[in-house]
């Protein structure tokens, strides 16, 4: 048995809304598996079903060989969970929260001290461990929750947006720890994230989901390679007119617009970039800024979902790519 999680037509409906739609995923033992998707794509719902918090409307899944519907207790014994939203008791101290967790998961008292010390060092909360959680900043609470999820060594660790709202240094620490954890035998990590960089760095395989369905599933490297060519970003006040011109000239493969910015997918950036600038200049379109880069996972995401992920809110790429996608099929 090479896999640890296998979902079969896993579906969850909330009234009319289908949050997860016939999801079929197989997660290999020991891999770091990423679930990527825009807000409301169904990532958290999928994880909630796999961790037995929600009951599937139809379909099922096995985790570590146990059925999530028929054997929820065994499933819960096999998993660890770091939630997206806070789930700590703020009237207790950091250490008390950790001890409580260790007790709930049956970690022996001797082992507890060692592990708590280790995770507290990891998230750099040693000196605050005996303060009440209500005195912690939100970043500190987040760090404590991650520490907590690591105390019992689960077979499968679910991390729902693990580094959201963390400063770069802490994020770096957590990433290092997660990738080490993934290498350790018999621990499989399922990660949901908005951050392309995070998925790219940590995951062995990534499933991009949107509207409750898998859009694409592959290793990050393969996903990026499928997106041959390069990306040119142009900033101009005449974005609409420029994109019309570009489409007429058939210079670029794909156009996505967000406000005054155009994201263009091209085969060979170095030869096409000057021609775009030239064309703009001859049509009287003033370009404020232009850049050329290799496709990253953000572009992969944009390519498959028609929406760019913007974790801090703000602009989304809409429209053109979606139209373009229809034309390509």
């Amino acid at each position, binding site marked *: 048995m090479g896999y640890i999680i296998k979902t079969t037509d896993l579906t969850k409906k909330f009234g009319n809304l289908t949050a997860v739609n016939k999801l079929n995923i197989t997660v290999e033992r020991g891999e770091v598996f990423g679930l990527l998707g825009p807000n409301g794509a169904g990532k958290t719902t999928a994880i909630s079903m796999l*961790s*037995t*918090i*929600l*009951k599937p409307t139809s379909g099922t899944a096995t985790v570590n060989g146990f059925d999530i519907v028929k054997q*929820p*207790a065994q499933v*819960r*014994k096999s*998993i660890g*969970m770091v*939630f997206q*939203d*806070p*789930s*700590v*008791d*703020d*009237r*207790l101290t950091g250490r*008390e929260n950790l001890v*409580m*967790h260790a*007790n*709930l*998961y*049956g970690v022996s008292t001797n082992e507890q001290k060692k592990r708590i010390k280790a995770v507290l060092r990891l998230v750099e909360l040693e000196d605050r461990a005996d303060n009440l959680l209500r005195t912690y900043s939100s970043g500190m609470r987040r760090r404590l929750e991650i520490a*907590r999820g690591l105390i019992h060594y689960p077979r499968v660790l679910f991390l729902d947006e693990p580094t959201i709202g963390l400063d770069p240094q802490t994020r770096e620490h957590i990433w290092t720890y997660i990738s080490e954890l993934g290498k350790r035998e018999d621990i499989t990590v399922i990660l949901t994230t908005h951050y392309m960089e995070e998925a790219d760095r940590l995951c062995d395989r990534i499933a991009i989901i949107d509207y409750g369905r898998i859009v694409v599933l592959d290793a990050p490297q393969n996903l990026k390679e499928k997106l041959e060519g390069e990306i040119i970003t142009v900033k101009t006040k005449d974005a609409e007119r420029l994109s019309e011109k570009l489409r007429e000239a058939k210079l670029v493969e794909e156009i996505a617009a967000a406000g005054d910015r155009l994201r263009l997918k091209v085969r060979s950036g170095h030869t096409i970039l000057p021609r775009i600038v030239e064309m703009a200049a001859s049509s009287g379109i003033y370009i404020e800024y232009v850049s050329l880069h290799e496709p990253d996972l953000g572009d992969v995401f944009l390519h498959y979902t028609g929406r760019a992920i913007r974790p801090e809110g703000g602009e989304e790429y809409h429209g053109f790519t979606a139209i373009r996608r229809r034309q390509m099929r």
Partner: protein
Amino acid sequence: MSEMRGVYTLWLRELKRYTRERTRIVSSFFQPILWLVVFGAAIRLPISGSTSLEYQQFIFPGIIGQTLLFTSMFMGISVIWDREFGFLKEILVSPISRGSIFLGKMLGASTDAVIQGIIVLLLGFVIRVPVSAVIFLQALPLMLLITFGLVCIGLSIASFISSLESFGAIQSFVNLPLFFLSGALFPLSNVPSWLLWVSYVNPLTYGVDALRTIILGSSWTPLFPVHYEVLTVCAFDAAMILIGTFAFSRRK
């Protein structure tokens, strides 16, 4: 084994949270004293069936019952609180069974409520009701038994309700009838028969009457023999624990 540890862990958490709320403990003195000293002194009702009892002394066990009731029901809020602040999820994905989670929560909430009850019990000297060690040791387990069932009511309601506001509304909807119809404030020996029957359906009636018998001793004649009353309370507890466990174990 690990289930027991889970129950203990959750019990300890409730207790820690409670003891850290100094203001709640201090304010818990206030309401019973108001009832005993102001209400009890103002309404100088003669107590039928007993010549030696003053009204204040008569309602004293009733006020203990009221404290247990109100505190127990209030503890239901902790479930909603945990859900609101996300902590409930942390417990629900742990390997501990739903039944044990409910038991831990129930025992923790009951302990808090009984501590409040003990505080009121020890206030007996204010109205010249001496609480000897023997009375204390008899009253304590009875208070626990009374509390278990009441806490289960609060927790069961809370598992069906998602907002703090509607819990508050339903809470007073349950609290006041149970309190007024329990014989806490007036003896049931000379009430209209319909009221008597309604009171007989109220589980708190038996708790309050048994408590009164233990605390006031020979100056009070119980409605039924005390061991029947205690058995009734136990049966109520058992039923409520079953209902509560069921309510708590539902999964969406």
